[in-house]
């Protein structure tokens, strides 16, 4: 189910019997910027379209969807990913939320801590001694990490 929060809004509207004859309803989405919303809507439409085209063939659907997702990620900046995740979460759009979270996870997978810090723009707030201790504790998890 896509955009569950929006569907909820429609259901509530019908229950309240607000009939004004208007064909468009304005739905307030205070927590979503227009840019990520546009991307999410395109994602949703594309997903539904691909699904309709390949009604019987699940594998084809997955393949086409993967191709589209790869194209999409080339255009999206890391900063935008955060906005997209927040928007997808607010709208209760599970497929998009999982997809963008997986994208972030994949970006930092098998990378050194320095790279991840740079990528996220984080600064360490540990004291020097503390960080040394932690690095020792987690030494086994750094084996075989990619060179940047």
């Amino acid at each position, binding site marked *: 189910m896509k955009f569950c929060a929006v569907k909820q809004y429609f259901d509530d509207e019908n229950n309240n019997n607000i009939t004004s004859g208007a064909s468009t309803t304005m739905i307030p989405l205070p927590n979503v910027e227009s840019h990520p919303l546009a991307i999410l809507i395109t994602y949703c439409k594309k997903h539904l379209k691909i699904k309709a085209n390949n009604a019987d063939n699940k594998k084809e659907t997955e393949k086409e969807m993967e191709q589209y997702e*790869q194209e999409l990620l080339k255009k999206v900046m890391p*900063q935008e990913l955060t906005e997209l995740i927040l928007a997808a979460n607010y709208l209760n759009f599970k497929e998009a*939320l999982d997809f963008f*979270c997986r994208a972030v996870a994949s*970006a930092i997978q*098998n990378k050194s*801590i320095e790279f991840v810090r740079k990528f996220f723009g*984080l600064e360490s707030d540990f004291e020097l001694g503390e960080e040394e201790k932690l690095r020792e504790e987690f030494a086994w998890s750094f*084996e075989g990490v990619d060179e940047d």
Partner: protein
Amino acid sequence: MKWQMIETEERERRERQRIERAERAKMRDQGWLIDVTSTSRRRLSSVRQNAHTNTDDGEDIISSLPDSLLCHILSFLPIRDSVATSILSSRWRPLWTLVPILHLDQKQLIEPYPDERNKKFKFVDIVLRIWTLRNAISNPTPPLHKLFIHWYHYCLPFYVDTLVRAANLRDLQELDLHLCNYHPHQPLELPRSLYFSTTLVVLKLGADIRLNPPSACVFPCLRILLLKCVTFANRDSLPTILNACPVLLDLSLHVVDKYLNNLDEFNVIVLVATLKRLHLHWNVHPSSKYIFQINTPALEYIHFRGYLNRDDVLEKLPDVVECVIQIEDCEKSDDYAKRVWDFMGKLYNVISMELSIITALILFQGSNHEDIPTFHNLSSLKFCGDLWYEWYAWHVVWLLLCWAPGLQTLVIEHSSWLGYLNKRNPFLEEPLDVPECMLSHLTTCVYKGFGGYENEMELVRQILKAAKVLKIMKITVSSYPILENKPHFRKELSKFYRGSQNCQFVFDEGHFI
């Protein structure tokens, strides 16, 4: 004065944004390299390329997300990377422990797998370290929904026993254990409390695990059950577990007769009214005394692999729409072919079917008697395996098509490569009756694993000639051995006479696994 400062700031900010936008546009135009080292990461690594634009100003892009979303991101990482994020900052320290999944796979955590004798950190060390840290960093211990332990080499079942007992069963929804024991005579016995879990939804157990369920055992929420080569304490062990699952939807059983040696009698009775999917790998030779009995009226999908014993029972499955059948041949049995036809007859409403070539050959041997069922609803049929295993295998496929009058899609997936292909197949030259589906329904035909041999060319030629309503004929080239001179074959194949006016011919040179 203040107003001027604000104005300047505004101007500077707008200027910065303009520069950023220009840089972004430039990056997009330059195109991106794609990391080809791993297919699964290939598509997502373009995000990493974009990261270079962030490293210059070090803008924090992640801290605006709440903890729950950060944990959601961590849940997609392998455990090693997830744990490593503990060092990023003090906020990140406990986040990995809040992910309610522990996925401990020896293949993933030990590289190069499987030799861990010379390694500094062995699998058991890593598992214990992760477990202890998880309990130490967050207090109280965060709930665990999914526990996955695959331990293939130098397995110490006692440690697994400790961990399973320590995992709070109040929260556990998924348990997946595959253990290969160092001492083959001491399989792990699951703790008794597990058999009364009220939260377990998925239970998957493999290899050196011994099941000894108490008779009062109950799994009120269990939907998916997988038992692969486990040993059973007595002949009632399996029925007890199956009867304890009132909402079971998906059952996979892999039974090998050598693991049943301790039992005189072992009847696999699957009498589950709710079951929708069944995967039975019955590696039990017909000469043994073990049998199976399946009565699952709601079943929609069945995958059967193995031998058929004389006393095996399969009740009618009217709702099965998809099936995969890989029956092993048994030469010692006289009426084996009839047994196989009886089995197939229970799937009379099936819509999509996949058959191994060996199954097709057995069916062909028994195709002379009266009660051959017709599969009226069958619209997609796939043959998998070595098509040229026997000389007459293609002949067999052609004849079997006669029992699927409404067939729309035919797929032949040829897997291995044998020298027989070089010799001309005498069976291909015999004139054959054209199956009804070819004349009226067959619209799609796919041949995978094309190696350029004469027999294959002849096969394609015959299909193209006979199929009067064919819309697509797709041929995918085999990836091994590598086919030379592909354009030549494409040209030759596309020249064949087509019985159907609108037939499109597709020659796929891509990689085929």
